[in-house]
């Protein structure tokens, strides 16, 4: 009886044990199946994230285009202090690294001592191939080599505002860097590429012995972009502008060189500038591309635009004569530049001598509506759509907000603000015979395998904003006279006939114009018969106290001349 009971108990015990085993089996095979399958998969596979190479930014100069921005990998030696553990190991490792890297052992010890609990202490960045091989051969415990993409800007500050720079992503979980300025920002989606993942089958030493092609995704490098910028012309513009800014102790300056037939920007300089590799070292103002972000009152450089609009709509004729009130238009409280006194003047004479009163009367002949529409037609008060971030639209108030004075002020560039790109485009329209152009910076996009995916062709100009004969008269008759006999004599070229307009605009401070701060500008083109380029130059706040002058004709026109002469010679010699 007792034996039988023992047998029953043993049976029950066995059933219970097998039951437990069965439950455990079920638990492992069913409930924990995913976890163990994942662990098994991980032990058999290794995963590497493949960061794509960011696309290059090239200029359109030379035979193949110069590199303005490119990514390359740099190798960084780091130490894991936790893995090193005891201080003796730290000393030993530091001594070994000293011989390879040429950095003092004590210096390395100091770096490690400062962050003893960290898992990553950077020792040296950008090591050479020989140093990398020496570190690998030394097989040092707790020492690793990290490889990361780094962005290089071989042209330095020369193209800083156009190319821009990259920096930390807004997403804290994303270690990537994204374009924060210039073309780097505007073309971020094209340049960045897509990340890949490699899944390797590994042996027990975790050496790769095969590639899991089903789970692997290849990285796709970013597309490269070719800009319309030519570094050589950019250098002409930058050096000429910088020289003048220094000579006149000015606050800042902008220069743009544009092809008037296509709207392609050949050079765009905004000073002061910065080195994109070290953008964080400069104060915010230098990072601004003033050519697109800073609106300013244009002053007299605005006059040819209003004259062209008035001629086109028939409000005035090219042979008309306007009485310029002998120097003071009392009813509207308008005087002439530098106290000049003019009587009857032709339209050409008004532009040549830059008469404010003559322009005010042209504005009155046009009336509010026609003046507003004419100015708007040239693109003022709206962004040009240039492919750079942060473009300002300028200010052209609707006519309902105009005072009775506005119609006399806007024609000579007051009560309106414009950007450098807007003015350059407006003059490009005059230069090409009245056809619209869109300022642009990208000439072509090349994908990661070298195919051209987008090409900005030299488009044939369609339609006219103003009549070609009007545009031609303004450029060839009126604006050449400004250079030959008027306020822009300093812009005259030896070999070519230049045309253009000077501008000297007061800068309003605390809502009032003062007699100290001015913006000196010159915008024009050459040659006059078939203009090849339009050049805009603007210098803000030249130091009047130097006694060397502060007008557009004195300060900006010589910069125009230097840029234009060098650019035309360069284009001629290079057969472009």
């Amino acid at each position: 009886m007792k034996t039988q009971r023992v047998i029953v108990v043993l049976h029950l015990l066995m059933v219970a044990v097998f039951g437990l085993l069965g439950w455990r089996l079920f638990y492992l095979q069913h409930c924990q199946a995913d976890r163990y399958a994942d662990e098994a998969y991980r032990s058999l596979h290794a995963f590497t994230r493949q960061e794509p190479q960011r696309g290059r930014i090239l200029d359109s100069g030379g035979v193949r285009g110069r590199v303005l921005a490119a990514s390359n990998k740099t190798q960084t030696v780091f130490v894991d202090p936790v893995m090193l553990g005891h201080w003796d190991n730290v000393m030993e490792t530091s001594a070994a690294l000293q011989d390879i890297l040429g950095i003092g052992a004590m210096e390395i010890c100091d770096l490690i001592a400062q962050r003893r609990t960290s898992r990553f202490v950077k020792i040296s960045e950008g090591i050479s191939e020989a140093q990398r091989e020496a570190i690998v051969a030394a097989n040092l415990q707790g020492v690793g080599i990290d490889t990361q993409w780094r962005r290089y800007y071989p042209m330095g500050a020369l193209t800083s505002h156009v190319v821009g720079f990259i920096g930390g992503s807004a997403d804290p979980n994303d270690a990537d860097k994204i374009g924060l300025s210039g073309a780097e920002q505007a073309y971020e989606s094209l340049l960045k590429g897509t990340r890949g993942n490699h899944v390797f089958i590994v042996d027990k030493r975790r050496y790769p012995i095969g590639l899991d092609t089903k789970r692997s995704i290849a990285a796709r490098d970013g597309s490269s972009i070719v800009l319309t910028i030519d570094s050589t012309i950019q250098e002409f513009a930058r050096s000429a502008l910088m020289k003048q800014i220094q000579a006149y102790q000015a606050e800042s300056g902008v220069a743009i060189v544009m092809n008037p037939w296509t709207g392609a920007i050949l050079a765009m300089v905004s000073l002061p500038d910065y080195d994109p590799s070290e953008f964080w070292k400069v104060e915010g103002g230098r990072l601004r591309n003033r050519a697109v972000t800073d609106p300013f009152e244009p002053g007299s450089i605005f006059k040819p635009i209003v004259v062209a609009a008035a001629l086109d709509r028939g409000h005035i004729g090219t042979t008309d004569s306007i009485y310029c009130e002998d120097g003071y238009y009392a009813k509207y409280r308008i005087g002439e530049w530098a106290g000049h006194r003019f009587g009857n003047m032709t339209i050409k004479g008004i532009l040549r001598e830059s008469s404010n009163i003559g322009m005010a009367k042209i504005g009155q002949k046009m009336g509010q509506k026609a003046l507003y529409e004419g100015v708007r037609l040239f693109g003022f008060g709206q962004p040009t759509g240039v492919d750079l971030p942060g473009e300002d639209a300028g200010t052209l108030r609707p006519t309902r907000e105009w005072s009775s004075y506005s119609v006399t002020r806007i024609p000579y560039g007051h009560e309106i603000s414009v950007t450098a790109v807007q003015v350059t485009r407006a003059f490009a329209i005059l230069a090409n015979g009245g056809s619209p152009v869109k300022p642009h910076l990208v000439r072509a996009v090349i994908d990661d395998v070298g195919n051209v995916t987008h090409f900005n062709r030299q488009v044939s100009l369609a339609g006219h904003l103003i009549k070609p004969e009007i545009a031609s008269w303004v450029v060839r008759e009126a604006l050449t006279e400004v250079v030959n006999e008027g306020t822009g004599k300093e812009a005259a070229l030896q070999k070519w006939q230049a045309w253009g307009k000077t501008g000297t605009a007061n800068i309003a401070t605390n809502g009032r114009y003062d007699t100290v701060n001015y913006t000196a500008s010159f915008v024009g083109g050459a040659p006059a018969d078939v203009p090849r380029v339009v050049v805009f130059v603007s210098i803000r706040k030249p130091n009047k106290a130097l006694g060397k002058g502060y007008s557009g004709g004195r300060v900006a026109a010589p910069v125009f001349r230097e840029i234009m002469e060098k650019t035309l010679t360069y284009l001629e010699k290079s057969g472009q």
Partner: protein
Amino acid sequence: MSRCRLIFIVFFLTVVLIGAVHMRVSSSRVFFRCRRAIVEQDNLRLQLGRKQLKLEELLNPSVISEHVENDAEPAP
């Protein structure tokens, strides 16, 4: 006859097994060498890129302008 057949089968299976293992090891070794070659190729490409960037820095029009200006300055 049956013993010979057995020996043959055992021998054949052993050869197939050894062959399979050998081919697997060879495949792994070739793959590993291939990966090393790819990494080496990447390294060379990066070195070339580094040199090209250095060259671009030297051909920077600003740098050339500076050289030209320095050369143009009369000797003291």
